[in-house]
C-alpha cells in the first residue's frame, strides 16, 4: 500500500500525521540515554559487540581531497579490516561521493569484496541546497556507477520552515529512482533540526516517504549522532514497526570514534528498538576512525595486551 496506508501523499494528511505524534521530553530522553550509557559490557559480550560493530561500520571517506588511491585503500580495508586475522568480518559498506563509486565498486570486486556494497551520498550532499533536477542527476549518476545504497540528505531549510510536503516529495522521488536496485538512507542532519520533537517528526516523515534507513547526520555538522538523538530515532523505528510491520534501519553517523561509543550505540539498539535490529541490514554506524579502534580493542581481547597502533593499517 502506498505510504503504508498512513498518509495519502497530500500535505493535509502528512501534517495531520506529524501533528499526532507525541512530543519528546528533552530531560527525560537525555536521562534515559545517559542511563543506558552506564551499561557495562564485558568479556564475551564485549567480544561479540566488537565483531557486530565491525560488521555494521559504513567505512566512510567524504573529503574534497579524496582520490582513487585513497578510495581503493579504503575498499581493501573494508573487505579485510585486519589482514592478519581472517576471522574479522567485512564492514557493512563503504560510503563515498558519487564520482568515487565506480572506482570503489571495481576495486571491491577485484579484492573479493563483491558482498560489500558501495553507498553514495547524494542529493547535493551535505547541504541539500540544489534544484531537484540536480539532486535527481546526482542520484542517477551514483546508481549508474554501481551504488547499492543511496545516502540522501533532506532539505533542512524546507523542514524548518514547515514545508514538510516538499521534503516528503523529494524523498518520494529519490525512492522511485532507487527502485529495488538501491537501498535508500535518508540523512536528517539532526544537528540542524536541533529539537528532539523535530527529530521524531523528520524520522516519521522519512519513513512514510519510503526510506529504508534513517540516518542522523552528514558528519559535516556538530553535534551529530548523540545518544539521545539515536534513542529518539530508535523509538521511531520501533513504533513504525508496530504501525506497519516494516522494520526500518537506523544509521548514526558522526562523532562515534571509539569502541566504547560504538558499544553504547549497540546497547541503545538492544534496549530501545530491540535485538531484531542488531544486524547490519538494520543498523549501521557511519564512521572512519572507529574501525581502527574496534580492531585494536579486538586485538587486546585476543592477546591480552594493547598493541602499538602500528599493528593496524591506515587507509
Amino acid at each position, binding site marked *: 500500500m502506498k505510504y503504508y496506508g498512513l498518509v495519502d501523499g497530500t500535505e493535509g494528511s502528512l501534517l495531520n500525521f506529524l501533528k499526532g505524534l507525541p512530543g519528546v521530553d528533552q530531560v527525560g530522553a537525555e536521562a534515559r540515554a545517559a542511563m543506558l550509557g552506564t551499561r*557495562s559490557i564485558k568479556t564475551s559480550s564485549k567480544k561479540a559487540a566488537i565483531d557486530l560493530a565491525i560488521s555494521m561500520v559504513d567505512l566512510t571517506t567524504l573529503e574534497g581531497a579524496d582520490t582513487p588511491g585513497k578510495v581503493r585503500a579504503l575498499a581493501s580495508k573494508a573487505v579485510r579490516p585486519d589482514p592478519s586475522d581472517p576471522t574479522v568480518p567485512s564492514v557493512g559498506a563503504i560510503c563515498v561521493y558519487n564520482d568515487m563509486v565506480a572506482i570503489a565498486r571495481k576495486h571491491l570486486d577485484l579484492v573479493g569484496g563483491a558482498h560489500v556494497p558501495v553507498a553514495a551520498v547524494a542529493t547535493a550532499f551535505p547541504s541539500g541546497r540544489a534544484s531537484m533536477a540536480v539532486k535527481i542527476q546526482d542520484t542517477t549518476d551514483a546508481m549508474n556507477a554501481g551504488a547499492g545504497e543511496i545516502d540522501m540528505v533532506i532539505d533542512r531549510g524546507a523542514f524548518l520552515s514547515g514545508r514538510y510536503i516538499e521534503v516528503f516529495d523529494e524523498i518520494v522521488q529519490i525512492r522511485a529512482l532507487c527502485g529495488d536496485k538501491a537501498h535508500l538512507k535518508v540523512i536528517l542532519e539532526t544537528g540542524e533540526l536541533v529539537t528532539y520533537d523535530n527529530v521524531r517528526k523528520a524520522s516519521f516523515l522519512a519513513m512514510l516517504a519510503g526510506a529504508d534507513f534513517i540516518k542522523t547526520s552528514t558528519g559535516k555538522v556538530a553535534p551529530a549522532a548523540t545518544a539521545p538523538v539515536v534513542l529518539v530515532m530508535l523509538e521511531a523505528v520501533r513504533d513504525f514497526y508496530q504501525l506497519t510491520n516494516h522494520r526500518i534501519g537506523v544509521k548514526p553517523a558522526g562523532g562515534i570514534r571509539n569502541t566504547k561509543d560504538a558499544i553504547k550505540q549497540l546497547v541503545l539498539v538492544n534496549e530501545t528498538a530491540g535485538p531484531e535490529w542488531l544486524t547490519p541490514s538494520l543498523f549501521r554506524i557511519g564512521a572512519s576512525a572507529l574501525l581502527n579502534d574496534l580492531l585494536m580493542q579486538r586485538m587486546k581481547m585476543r592477546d591480552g595486551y594493547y598493541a602499538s597502533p602500528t599493528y593496524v593499517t591506515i587507509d
Partner: protein
Amino acid sequence: MTPKDAFVEYAPALESRSIVTISPEYGHFINGEFTKGANHFPSINPSNEEVLSHIALGNAQDIDIAVDAARIAFESTWSKMSGKERGKYLYRIARILQERAREFAVLESLDNGKPIRESRDVDVPLAAAHFFYHAGWADKLDYAGMGNSPRPHGVAGQIIPWNFPILMLAWKIAPALAAGNTVVLKPAESTSLTALLFAQVCQQADLPAGVVNIITGDGSTGAALVDHPGIDKIAFTGSTEVGKAIARAIAPTQKKATLELGGKAANIVFEDAAIDEAVEGIVNGIFFNQGHVCCAGSRLLLQEDIADEVLAKLKVRMAKIRVGDPLDKNTDLGAINSSEQLQKIRDLSTSGDEEGAERWSPECALPNTGFWFPPTIFTGVTQAHRIAREEIFGPVLSVLTFRTPQEAIEKANNTPYGLSAGIWSEKGSRILWTAGRLQAGVIWANTFNKFDPASPFGGYKESGWGREGGRHGLTAYLKEAESNNE
C-alpha cells in the same frame, strides 16, 4: 551462538566486593568508641541469604548511655562551637563519603539488596551532597531569615528505615549537626552496616566524641530511644503505623518531632504527555529501589484515551528490566530487603488477584536463593481495591484510569496519604492547574523520584509532619526558627 545473541545476554559485570571489610560482629558506636554490644542478631544479604555480620541489639541501657554521651557532647563541645567550625567537620565528612564512595556503595548493595547502579549513582552521591549542602548552612544560620540567633534543640533521637540506609542517615544527621544538635541514631534492623561504616567515618573525621552515636537494634530499641527523657527532638522515617505510635508516645512531652511516613503516590499521565518519557517515569517511579520508596509512584492514573497505548509501551519497557545480582552493574531491579517484606508484597498482590485485578509480569528468571519479586503491574484496579489504597512498598504498580482532569485530581487525593505525586503533560498550564490541586508534599512534573538536598521533602495528611532538606528541613532542628515559622 551468533555475535548478536552473545552480546544481547550481557555477560556478568560484577562490582568487586573486595573493597569492603565486614567484621563478623559489631557493637554500638557511643561517645566516639565502638562498644562490644550484646544479644547479637544476624544481618543478611537479601540477595542470597548469606550472613554478613552480627549486629548488637540495643536496649534501654545502651540508649541511656548514648543519650548521656550526646548530652555531654552537646553541652560541652558542639553547641559552643562556632558554626564555621561545625561546618568544617561536615565538609570533612562529605569529602570522606566521596572518597570512600565505592566502599559505601558496595556495602549498601550487599546489605540492602539494591542494585549497585543505584547505590553508586544515587544513594551515596546524594548522601555526600546532603553533608556538603548542610555544611554550607552551619555558619549562616543567623543570616538566613530564621529569627534572631536560632538555637539547636539539644539531643536528637533519629530512627531511619531500611530502604535508603546511608541516604536517610545523611538526611537526618547532616541538618542536625549543622544546626548544632548532637544525635543518637538507630538504623533499621536489617540494614545497619553502612551506618556502622559511617561511624568509622566520624572517627576518621575527628568528629568530637558523642556528637554522633549509633545504636543498632530493632523496634524495641527505637521505642526506648523515643521514650528516653533526655531526647529533645525525634526524627523518624518509616511506616505510618510506627509514626502514629511515636506521635502518641511524645504527645505528653516537650519533644519536637518530624515524621516521614508512608505514601501511595499517584503518577498521572495526561493524553498530551510525552509518552516514551512518561513510560520511563512510570518505570522509575515504581521500580526504582525495588519499589521500596515511600514516595514511589505506586498508583498509575492514565487518561483513558491513551491507556492502551501507554500500557503496551510499558509492557515492552518492563520486559527490558534486568532483575538479578545487586552487584552486577547492569542490574536494574535487585532483591527485596527481607523475607517479611517479600511476604507482605505477596499477600497484597494476592489480594489484587482475589479482588479481580489483572496481574502481569514480564518473563524473568529469579534467583533461587534470596528474596525476589518480579516487576509487576495490576490493571483494572479501582479505588476500592486494597492494592489501590495500601502501601505495598514493592515493585508492584496499580493501574487506574480517568476521563477528565477533575477526575484525576479526585482519585489522586482519595487516599489517607499525601507524600508525592507525578504529572505528565506537555502542557504547562495543565501541569500548574493539577499541581495546585494535588494534596501531596512533593510533586514532580515530567520526571519522578528526583531528590536534591536543597529541596524540601515531606508529606500531607498521614504521610508525615514537617519537611526534610532545604531551608525548611533545617528549621526543624532549630528553636527560634520553628516558632518564627508558625
